[in-house]
């Protein structure tokens, strides 16, 4: 297993975003972190990315506490645009190249091309769809061990979604793990190995996608509707 969390809790004011969850993530698999908005998916990912410190509990990546060492190996893409306003698409690439040894410049150029972005475009002037594509290109141009993509299909039109999913799948390898959060479950159903359903900061259900289908006699989409309806 690569990512291990135990009794993880994160509280904001009186609200508990993550409520004592424990699970492990194995190497080389594609995980879906499922749940509606506010269920705790983003907070969990931010904790694993080192952007948020947990209130209590532990989380490690290959035995390392979350910190500079894990940030070199984990590529996290947040759901919100986060590039500096002054940056062009090319600047974003330079920034990633400056800070991440695993950043592949050629791959970035290729992905920018595929996403129909222009290197000279300012990140702040991009439409929400193009900004989402830029985030995906910058994140997937890293040769990371674990990719955590928070709502990668948000803002992406229905035509481009297949292209994005294909691009995400290109990163999947035996030694690479993907953790994808989304509420667009039907888009993920066919590509995931494991599913983790998060509800009110707790794990409502988790397991291998095929096992869950067999055990409950339902698709992941149907299970999602049952859990959150």
């Amino acid at each position: 297993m690569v990512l291990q969390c135990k009794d993880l809790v994160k509280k904001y004011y009186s609200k508990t975003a993550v409520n004592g969850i424990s699970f492990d993530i194995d190497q080389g698999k594609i995980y879906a972190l499922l749940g509606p908005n506010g269920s705790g998916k983003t907070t969990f990912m931010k904790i694993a990315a080192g952007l948020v410190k947990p209130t209590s509990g532990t989380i490690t990546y290959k035995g390392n506490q979350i910190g500079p060492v894990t940030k070199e190996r984990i590529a996290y893409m947040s759901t919100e645009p986060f590039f500096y306003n002054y940056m062009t698409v090319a600047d974003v690439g330079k920034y990633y190249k400056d800070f991440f040894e695993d950043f592949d410049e050629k791959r970035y150029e290729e992905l920018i091309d595929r996403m129909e972005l222009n290197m000279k475009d300012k990140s702040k002037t991009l439409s929400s769809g193009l900004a989402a594509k830029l985030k995906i290109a910058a994140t997937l141009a890293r040769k990371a061990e674990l990719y955590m993509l928070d709502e990668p299909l948000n803002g992406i039109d229905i035509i481009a979604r297949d292209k994005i999913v294909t691009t995400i799948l290109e990163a999947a390898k035996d030694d690479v793990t993907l953790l994808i959060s989304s509420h667009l479950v039907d888009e993920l159903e066919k590509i995931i190995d494991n599913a983790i359903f998060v509800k009110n900061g707790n794990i409502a259900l988790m397991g291998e996608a095929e096992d869950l289908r067999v055990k409950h006699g339902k698709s992941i989409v149907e299970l999602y509707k049952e859990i959150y309806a």
Partner: protein
Amino acid sequence: MLKLMKYEFRKQAFSKMVILLLVGLIQLFFFFGIVTDNNNVIGTSMGILAVFTFGALFFMAFEAIITFSNDLKQKCSYMLFLTPHTSYSIVGAKVLAAAIQIILAGIAFFLVYFLDIAVLVGKFNQLELLKEMINQFLQEVFSLNIQLQDIIGVVAVIITAWISVITVAFFSITLSTTFLANFKLKGLVSFLIFIAINYVFGEIVNMGLGRVYDINNLSNLSMYYMLESLYMLCFTIITYVGTSWMLEKKVSV
């Protein structure tokens, strides 16, 4: 850390270009007065430059603080905190970048003043008179015999005190986003903490140096300034370590 500093400079580059442009315009105004022999224009431009110098240096410190605040409170904070660096490197880069910018700006303004005074002296051919006037003024008003090392001492105190204020602001902002994050009046509380820390640091300097020197009868100004700078440096280190430690333990962006 150098790469972090590079991006700190880049984030604040636009305002520096604006400052440079405005200084250029003021200088054009000044030289227009020199060429046209218009003393009113010369005097006005020098006055504007003096006010602008103060404003620009104040703005630079303010911008360093605002940039730090944005890097903790806005989504672009992810850019910074996703990089494989410790909080000590991140805050250290910010403190060093702020210090270097203030020092460079100080040098740049000094050169501008030096140029303007040299031009004025050249024009009016009254170097000795000017020097004598300044010395006489200082002796009469302050009863001081100003030496070069004293001037260096004053500059060192101004720079270190300025940097200390910036790091105290970093510390207060960080406090509001970490340990005080769950308090509703965290902004006000952190501002009050900023004021209180600066007051306490000021009192420590007064108490510490007051024991060694008679403030009203200073015979060794440069030593006094050097010690005051050392105090400021210590405060900077304390608040830098405190800020980094809080971010390391409690960062939530």
